[in-house]
């Protein structure tokens, strides 16, 4: 890894004001173009970690570096443009009256106007296959469509790294597959936070396990999922009937 990594987290620790401590020193790096899954049970501190990546939470100790820029007050606008976070609930993410305005929000906040803005919106929406819904109000779309629009709102900012918080939650199988296809087609660094292990397996060659506020394991997704002891030690369970070994072969067959 000689090039500047998209994301580098070192010694990150954080406690909430009420005294509850969520992170106890997190270290990892994600190279440009990688797709990495961040796995962990409920309450492992995944969402807290995500909120550090664009400086919404400020580290109690340690650093976060995005494409060589340290996350901090000085570069905040730049950092927020580079780190695109897709939150778990699309209803939280979509707040403008129409899909078009919502997708335009980020670039417009960065000062973009006129035809350039429109082109950006159209491009982002067509990447997720939602271009024809531009003038609809978001709350009239199906859940899967809303999630795709949420991804588009972030893509419109042309981020260095795309961070997805539980992208597969509440999706029906068809929407789930559509989203996977979209994500696979994108040419960006992806950090996918999830406890949906098959989905991680399908999309991300590499995985990290976050447990009790530290990185407990880091390796190829297939190997981690096949390690029964590791999995049960961190409260991670594969769905009934899912075998990582056969799935691995299948997913490699698809991507390769």
């Amino acid at each position, binding site marked *: 890894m000689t090039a500047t990594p998209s994301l580098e987290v070192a*010694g990150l*620790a*954080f*406690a*909430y*004001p*009420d*005294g509850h*401590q969520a992170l*106890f*020193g997190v270290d990892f790096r994600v190279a440009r173009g990688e797709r990495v899954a961040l796995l962990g049970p409920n309450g492992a501190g995944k969402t807290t970690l995500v909120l550090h990546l664009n400086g*919404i*939470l*400020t*580290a*109690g*100790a*340690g650093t976060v570096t995005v494409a060589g820029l340290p996350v901090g*007050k000085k570069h905040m606008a730049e950092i927020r443009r580079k780190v695109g976070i897709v939150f778990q609930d699309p209803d939280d993410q979509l707040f403008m009256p129409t899909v078009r305005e919502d997708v335009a929000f980020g670039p417009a906040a960065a000062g973009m106007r006129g035809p350039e803005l429109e082109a950006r919106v159209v491009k982002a929406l067509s990447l997720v296959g939602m271009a024809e819904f531009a003038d609809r109000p978001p709350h009239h779309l199906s859940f899967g469509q809303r999630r795709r629009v949420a991804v588009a709102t972030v893509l419109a900012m042309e981020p260095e790294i795309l961070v997805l918080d539980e992208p597969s939650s509440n999706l029906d199988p068809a929407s789930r597959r559509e989203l996977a296809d979209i994500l696979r087609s994108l040419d960006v660094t992806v950090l996918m936070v999830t406890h949906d292990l098959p989905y991680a397996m399908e999309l991300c060659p590499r995985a990290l396990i976050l447990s009790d506020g530290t990185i407990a394991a880091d390796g190829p997704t297939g190997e981690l999922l096949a390690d029964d002891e590791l999995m049960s030690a961190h409260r991670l369970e594969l769905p009934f009937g899912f075998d990582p070994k056969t799935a691995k072969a299948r997913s490699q067959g698809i991507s390769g």
Partner: protein
Amino acid sequence: MHVPDGFINAPVSAAAGLVAAGAVAVSLKGARRELDERTAPLAGLVAAFIFAVQMLNFPVAAGTSGHLLGGALAAILVGPFTGVLCVSVVLLMQGVLFADGGLTALGVNIADMAIVTTVVAYLVFRGLVKVLPRGRRAITVASFVAALLSVPAAAIAFTLLYAVGGTTDVSLDKVAVAMVGVHVLIGIGEAAITALTVGAVIAVRPDLVYGARGLARPLKLRVGGELVDARGAAEPAAAARSHRKVWLAGLATSLVLAGVVSFYASSNPDGLEKVAQDKGIDEKTKDHATADSPLADYGVKDITDARVSVGLAGVIGVGATVVAGSAVFWAVRRRRTTDVSPVTLPEAGAGPEAGAGPEAGVAPKPAAPKTP
């Protein structure tokens, strides 16, 4: 308590408008200190909440109902300056959208319901928090009292405005007794809701309560199995405690003063005579048509009302003294801390909580001048 157009005459409305504009300008400046990126939406939420809870009418005596004013809640949750802004925005939007409260009476409404309630509540609150033992319960108790006093204070302010610029000559005594009487009851409701809300928030998200910022515990971070102290976590408890005696003494003095004042007030025959006279008029009124009206009702119970208002004078006396004392004390402390904070604040990488609020005890030395 929303004042419609034409209820207060133009000069007083205009003057109140100027006062309101000035106060909003000051608050805009002050709010920059109170609000950061994470707390800005909280102000909006508080405004929306006040908006919503004002629709939550609760039954008061005799078929009338009252609603929260919200100033106390706003001041405690987001700080006094932002609090003024929140309630002002609520009043503005109510005026523009729901036509609740006249547009030309906006100044009167803001002065009365945004500024008076917020300022009174916050000063009472700070005063009590200083005096009471530290802890969440103290915050809840202080919220209760602050809200309780803020509502009749607004009623009194309304009466004063009415005295200066009322367009009808309903006798002042009657307006005062009716307004204050009803609003003491409303105040109890407001106090209950404020205390419970603040209590609920502080139990779950203490970081959201502006008035409780001094309570943040020092942070400890465990890095690689070792305990490491977070930077910027001072020990604010001691500093705050050393002032408690002063505050206790102040409170005791004001209680004594208030006792004397109310004794004097109750032994003043003029007041009683006037009330008796009003009673006659009001009873006549009641015979006619307005059986359900709050005014008539309060006319009949005048004797108790006289006691209530005298007792109230005492309570408000205490409140006013605490308020005045707090104001001076707070202003002095504020000035001292603002000199220091620019140096300490930016360094506090430990997050918005630890030592951030100037109240958190950045001033360890006792402030020199105590009471005027």
